[in-house]
C-alpha cells in the first residue's frame, strides 16, 4: 500500500505524517509536491496539517486551488482513500469533498492539548479496527476547528453515520465540557457518504509512538492498512 503526503507551501505536519505512516504501517510513503498534476500510483492520499498558504484569506481556501487538488478530487471521486488532518480537513471542506466548515475556536484562541475521542462508526476504512464506542486519546492543535454545518447537512451526516469521531470525556461521555472548540454535536472528524474521504481536526500522527507517551493514533493508520489488505472493514 503506497501513501502520498501532499506538501502545500506552509504545510508543517507533512514530515510528521510521513514518519508516522512509515513507522506504524511499514508501508512506502512519499511526498507529493503541490504543483504536481498527478497522484497516479498512490493508494492513499494524506493532506497534512499546517498553515497552507499561511492560512491567509481563510484556512484551506487557497490550497484548494493548488494544481495537485484537481487529481486529488478526481481520485476521491473514484473512491480513492483521502485523509485530511487538521489543515487538511479544512482544505477538504473548502474543496467540497466534505460538507461543512471549520470556524474559529469558540474561545478565539489556538488550542494545543490532548482530547478524548469516541469512535462513532467502526465500519469505515479509517476505524475498522476499533471497537464500537472505543475511546482514544488524540491531541488537537488548531485555531479553527469549530465544526459547523447547516441543520439539514448535520441531520444527513448523523443519519448516514458519517460522524466518525466525537469529542468526549475519558469515560466516553459526550459532554459540553469535553468539547474544546465549540464544534456542533462535538464533531471531531467526519467522512463523506461513501466513507473513502476522512477529515479530522485531531492529530493521530502525533500519538503513534511509545516514546511520545501515547500510541492511540496507531489505530487509524493500522485500520487503513488492514482495510487495504482486506482484513477489516
Amino acid at each position, binding site marked *: 500500500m503506497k501513501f502520498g503526503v501532499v506538501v502545500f*507551501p506552509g504545510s508543517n505536519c507533512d514530515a*510528521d505524517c510521513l514518519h508516522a505512516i512509515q513507522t506504524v504501517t511499514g508501508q512506502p510513503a512519499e511526498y507529493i509536491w503541490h504543483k504536481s498534476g498527478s497522484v497516479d500510483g498512490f493508494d492513499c492520499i494524506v493532506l497534512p496539517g*499546517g498553515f497552507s498558504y*499561511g492560512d491567509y484569506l481563510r484556512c484551506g481556501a487557497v490550497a484548494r486551488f493548488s494544481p495537485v487538488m484537481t487529481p486529488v478530487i478526481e481520485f476521491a471521486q473514484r473512491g480513492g482513500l483521502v485523509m485530511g488532518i487538521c489543515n487538511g480537513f479544512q482544505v477538504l471542506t473548502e474543496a467540497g469533498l466534505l460538507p461543512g466548515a471549520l470556524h474559529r475556536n469558540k474561545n478565539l484562541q489556538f488550542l*494545543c492539548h490532548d482530547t478524548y475521542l469516541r469512535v462513532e462508526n467502526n465500519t469505515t476504512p479509517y476505524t475498522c479496527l476499533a471497537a464500537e464506542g472505543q475511546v482514544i486519546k488524540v491531541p488537537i492543535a488548531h485555531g479553527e476547528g469549530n465544526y459547523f454545518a447547516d441543520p439539514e447537512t448535520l441531520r444527513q451526516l448523523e443519519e448516514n453515520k458519517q460522524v466518525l469521531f466525537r469529542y468526549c470525556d475519558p469515560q466516553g461521555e459526550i459532554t459540553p465540557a469535553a468539547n474544546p472548540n465549540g464544534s456542533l454535536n462535538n464533531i471531531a472528524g467526519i467522512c463523506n457518504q461513501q466513507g473513502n474521504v476522512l477529515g479530522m481536526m485531531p492529530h493521530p*500522527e502525533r500519538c503513534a509512538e511509545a516514546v511520545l507517551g501515547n500510541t492511540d493514533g496507531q489505530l487509524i493508520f493500522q485500520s487503513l492498512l488492514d482495510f487495504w489488505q482486506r482484513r477489516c472493514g
Partner: protein
Amino acid sequence: MALDPQVWREMGLTDSEYDKIVEILGRQPNYVEVGIFAVMWSEHCSYKTSRPALKTLPTDGPAILQGPGENAGIVDIGDGQAVVFKIESHNHPSAIEPYQGAATGVGGILRDIFTMGARPIAVLDSLRFGYLDNPRVRYLFDGVVAGISGYGNCIGVPTVGGEVYFADSYEDNCLVNVMCVGLIDQKDIKKGLAAGIGNPVMVVGAKTGRDGIHGATFASEELSEEAAERRPAVQVGDPFMEKLLLEACLEVIKTGYVVGIQDMGAAGLTSSSCEMASRAGTGLEMDLALVPRREEGMTPYELMLSESQERMLLVVEKGTEEKVQEIFAKWDLDAVVVGQVTGDGILRLKEGSRVVAEIPAKALTEEAPVYHRPTQVPAYLEEVQNFPLDSLNMPQDYNEVLMKLLASPNIASKEYAYKQYDYMVGLNTVVTPGSDAAVLRVKGTRKGIAMTTDCNGRYCYLNPKTGAAIAVAEAARNLVCSGAKPLAVTNCLNFGNPEKPEVMWTIWQCIEGMAEACRALETPVTGGNVSLYNETKGNAVYPTPTIGMVGLVEDLDKVCTQGFKQEGDVVFLLGENLPEFGGSEYLKVYFGLEKGSCPSLNLELEKTVQQFVLGEIRSGLIKSAHDCSEGGLAVALAECCISGGIGADITMVRRFRGDALLFGESQSRIVISVAGNNVVELVKKLVDAGVPYTQLGNVGGDSLIFNVVNPGCTGCGGNLVNLPVKTMEETWRGAIPCLMK
C-alpha cells in the same frame, strides 16, 4: 559638505562618536554613511557598553563547536550531530505592539538558527510582565502569547517551554526573550562569512519595505511616553514567508553552493553585509538598485536600514547563481544577485553606477566604540538586604499560605499560555511543557536534548551576583532533574540604562556571578544577546540575566519527570535546608515584601547534588526528581503531587522557623522519590557521595500532609499542611485563567 549635528544626534550618535567616524573615514560622512554607523554602533548591535564585562565569561569547553561571535552557538552531542541554539530579546517592540513584537522575536531567532544550516526543533520563551490586575498588562500578556503562538505555530516549530514571571518593575517594560534550539549534522554547519573574492552576493526571501527603520537604535533607548509613536520602528512578521525561506535555505545549504549566509535581523542589510565581510576579512560591493522592494521610491538609506523580516544575505560559489535561484523559485521566493565579494575590505554601496557609501567593513564592527562606564553600588541594596526579616510574625495557617502560593501567578500553572502553543509538531517532544525542563528526542538515536530557561529577577534585584549565579545553577538543576547532563549556556541580559552607574554596577555583578557559576558547573556561554535601556519613567526593570541552557539525555528510557509515580515510594530531599526566606515568593505573597538578600548559593554543594541526581536517574534508582524553587519545599512537594496525581505523607524535624522550612527558597535542593525497596541502597550511595539528605516520607493517599516534629519543645510540632491534591490542583491550574477573565 558637513551635516547638521542634529542629524547624527537624532540617529543616536554622540558628537565624539561622530568625530571618530570622521577620523576613520578621513573625511565627512554622507547621510547614508552616518545612518549605517548609527545602527552598527548602537548598543543593540555593537555591545559597546557590555562588551568589557561579556569578555569575562567562560566560553570554551570540550563540547563547544562554536562560541560567541556567530549567529548562534553550537555544541557537540556526539555521532557527528550538534545542537545550535541562541536566545534573543524583543522587549522594546513587544512593549509597544505585543503581537508583532513577540512574533518577530520568534521569527528573528529562528533565522539565527537556520542560517547556520540547522533545522529549528524547538522554541522557548522567557517572559516578564507586571501584575495581571492591570488591564494593560493583560493586553500585553495576551498579545505576546498570541504573537508567539501565531508565528511559531504557523511555521511549525514547537514552543516547548520557558517561563513567565510577574513583578511590578516590568509593568510598562515587559521582557520577551525567545530561545531557539536547532539540530544539525556537523558537516552541514554554515557560517556568516563573505569569503572568496568575486563570489556573488544574493538577497533572498521577502521584499524590502520601509518597516523597522532604525529598530536597532530604538531598542537602544529608554521607552518614553512618546514610544507609541515609534510603532513604525516595529516590524511586521509573516510566518508563512519564513516557512518558505526556512525550507529553501536548508535545501540550498545541502547543495554545497553556499559559502556564507546570514539573517538580516537588527539593522537589516547593513549588519548582515558588514558583519559577513568583517568576519572573512573581505569587502562587499552591492548595487542597491537591484534589491527587490515592495514600495516605490525607496532611497539607499531606507534600503540599508530597513528591518523588513524574512530576508537573508547569501554568498554563493561563483557560477552556481542560477542553480540557487532555481531552488528559491521552487519555493516562490526572490533570490537576486546584488553584488560581489571584494578584496579591499570596503563595504561599497552603489545605486546603479553612483557610489552612495564607502566604509571599511571592520570600522562598523571591530572598531565600534567600547565604553568602560562608571559603576556605583545602588543605595537601595543596603536597605533591602538589612531588612529585619526575623521580626516578621509566623503565619497561623500554613494551609492558607500554601494555597495562596499555588494561586500566585509566579507559581501557578502556565497552561493558559502554553496550551496556545503547538508544543508537539515535529514529533519530538518527549517531555511537554510544565515539567522542570522540556526534552526532545533525536530521531534515529536513543538521545534526547533537554532545554530550559531560567532567571529570578527579584533575586538579582536583591543580590545581583548571587541572583545571576542562581539562574545558572537552577537552569542546570532543571536539566539534571530531567535526566540530562548540562552542556552549555546562551544568555539574554536585560537591564536598565547603563549610563546610570548603579545599573552598570549591577551588570558587572550579574556577569561575575554568572561567570562563576558557569565555570563551576562546566557550562560555557556560547553567545546570546544584551538588551539595555529597559526603563520607563526613569525606573529600570529588575536586572534579568536570563539563562538558556541545553543538556544531553544519553538514553531516552532514562528521562525523569517531577510527578510522584507510585504509592509506597519514598520521598527524599537532597541538599540543605537553611533558615533563609529573603526574596521568596512567600515573602511577597504573604507580607507584600521584596526584601532581604536572595538565597545563598554554594556551588560545590550544587555540583555534588546535581552529579548525584544525574547519576542515579541514569542508574534507574530515582523515579521522580523536582527542583525546589519559588515557593520552597512545600510548593515543590505540591507540584510533585499534582503532576503525579497522588498525595504524600511528609514528616520533618523543625530546627528553625516553620515558614522558612516550608516556604524558604534555599538553593541546591531536589525532591526525589525512589521505590521503597531501594531506600537502603539510596542512603548508602548518598552517604558515600557526601550528599546532605533528609528522608521526608512516603508517596500515597489523596492529600499532601506535612507534619513537623520539634525535639525539645513539647507541643511545638504537629500538622502544618493537610490539603487534598485535587483542591491544590484546581487552584494552581485556575489561577491565571481566572486573572485573565
